[in-house]
């Protein structure tokens, strides 16, 4: 497979998707890091996987279930303690619609 190059178009798209606004310097640094990661992952292509079955999961486990029984009570206050801002028992976030 051809080597994937992280160019400015890809960077721009990633910034939009991740809702990040990077400075030129930051962008260049991030681009280099991501390129390094991809190159490292490319190393996997050196392995011979012809005889290897595809995996759906890294561990040989399946069918881990819970029964449909309520085990959690109201822990609203403890949960909201994690929020930077809250109001009337709800998480307060920047306005999402215009």
């Amino acid at each position: 497979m051809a080597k994937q190059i992280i160019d400015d178009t890809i960077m721009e798209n990633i910034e939009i998707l991740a809702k990040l606004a990077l400075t030129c310097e930051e962008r260049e640094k991030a681009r280099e890091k991501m390129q390094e990661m991809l190159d490292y992952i490319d190393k996997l292509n050196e392995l011979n996987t012809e005889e290897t079955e595809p995996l759906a999961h890294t561990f040989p486990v399946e069918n881990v279930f819970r029964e449909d029984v309520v085990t959690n009570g109201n822990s609203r206050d403890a949960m909201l303690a994690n929020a930077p801002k809250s109001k009337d028992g709800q998480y307060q976030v920047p306005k999402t619609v215009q």
Partner: protein
Amino acid sequence: MAKRYETVIGLEVHVELATATKIFCGCSAKFGGAPNTHTCPVCTGMPGSLPVLNRQVVDYALALGMAANCRINQTCKFDRKNYFYPDNPQNYQISQLYLPICHDGFLEIRTASGKKKIRIHEMHMEEDAGKLIHDEWEDCSLVDYNRSGVPLVEIVSEPDMRNAEEVIAYLEKLRLICQYLGVSDCKLQEGSMRADVNLSVMEAGSGKLGTRTEMKNLNSFKAIARAIEGERERQIELLEEGKCVQQETRRWDDNKEISYAMRSKEDAKDYRYFPDPDLPPVVISGEWLARIKERQPELQEEKAERYEKEFGLSAYDASLLTQSRHLADLYEQTVSLLQQKEVAGAPKKAANWFIGETLRLLKDRGMETEDLHFTPGHLADLIVVCERGEVNNQTAKKVFGRIFDEDVEPVSYIEENGLKTVVDTGVLESIVEKILASNPKTVEEYQSGKTKVLGFLVGQVMKEMKGKAEPQTVNRLLMEKLQRGPSL
């Protein structure tokens, strides 16, 4: 000359499952509740929390898949759908992309133009998102995660529908199946059934699909029908003007009856799906499938057919009685109680009460069949009392009203309120005589051939009896006395 266009519609329907708990944690999945009182580290996406799949969700998805003639992926798994929005605390929704639990099914719908198969592309399990409220005062949004993690099955159809009538028939069918299976109550208003409409138009006969838009925020069948008509017209107008339809998500405003583009280019759909490493695959054995299959209840069509064959009801009556599983259950329980009491023609007698009175009262009170709460035994008792001629039809209907509203016990209610028909002909006869004596002119009219006045006399007797007489008996007694001549 105007071109002719064909509308092509596919649906993505989300159904909230009727489980006690959420899909990946032990929080209550109940609708409502004070904001954030049904939340925990898992459903608010806290780092380090571990989702564990609710077995019941798989059972429900399998039941629904089987009822919709789907093939089952006996090995399925979960994937992460990544997007940033505050209704989604994890920044990804756990869903199924690569190996959804069910695929390649169909539902058969019936419309005025006959039967039609609507193919189902796939069904997958996923989690619901939280709810956002926009706070005008502080110019911010508030988030309630009670709904975050409530289990959903998304049913994706093929673009096989051509008009609003087919869409609504498909949704009705799906809703009925869910209700019969008990997997969801499918209330559009409460959001436990939500439909996104994918619609495009193409020149009739060209076979070339146009660009489609996706419409959201449709919370009633009427809104869906209006949105389909509105979007079809909007797209045709664009094409007629030589413009292009943009592939986009639009939000329907049912008050204004127009739709708005919801997302801009900045939010281009790119969900970067990848397998969820927290959740191991689900492997569904043959025994598991057999267990679900065995538990599948009789669905609406089979039930209606059985009512025709076994109970001798008309196809129309059978369809009315099976319009909801709850209604059908109450009906069947009433029939079986009547049969135990050896009431002749029980299925038809019970059907009359359900189709006549029950449906009329439901409409009158603005209630849904799901709101019915009377005990079938009470209706059965009332029917038995009627059979014995202990109350007349008029009174029985009134008593039924009380059963319908307050589930009163009819035998003691009739007793306590003195509603029993007076069968003692002695009492009745004396009243008949009294009425005849006080209406000599009417009696004369009758005897001179104006027999129509009999109705008036019957009415007078019934009034005197406070309705507790059998009109036929009153009729008979009056005629006997009148024909005996002017001996009064």
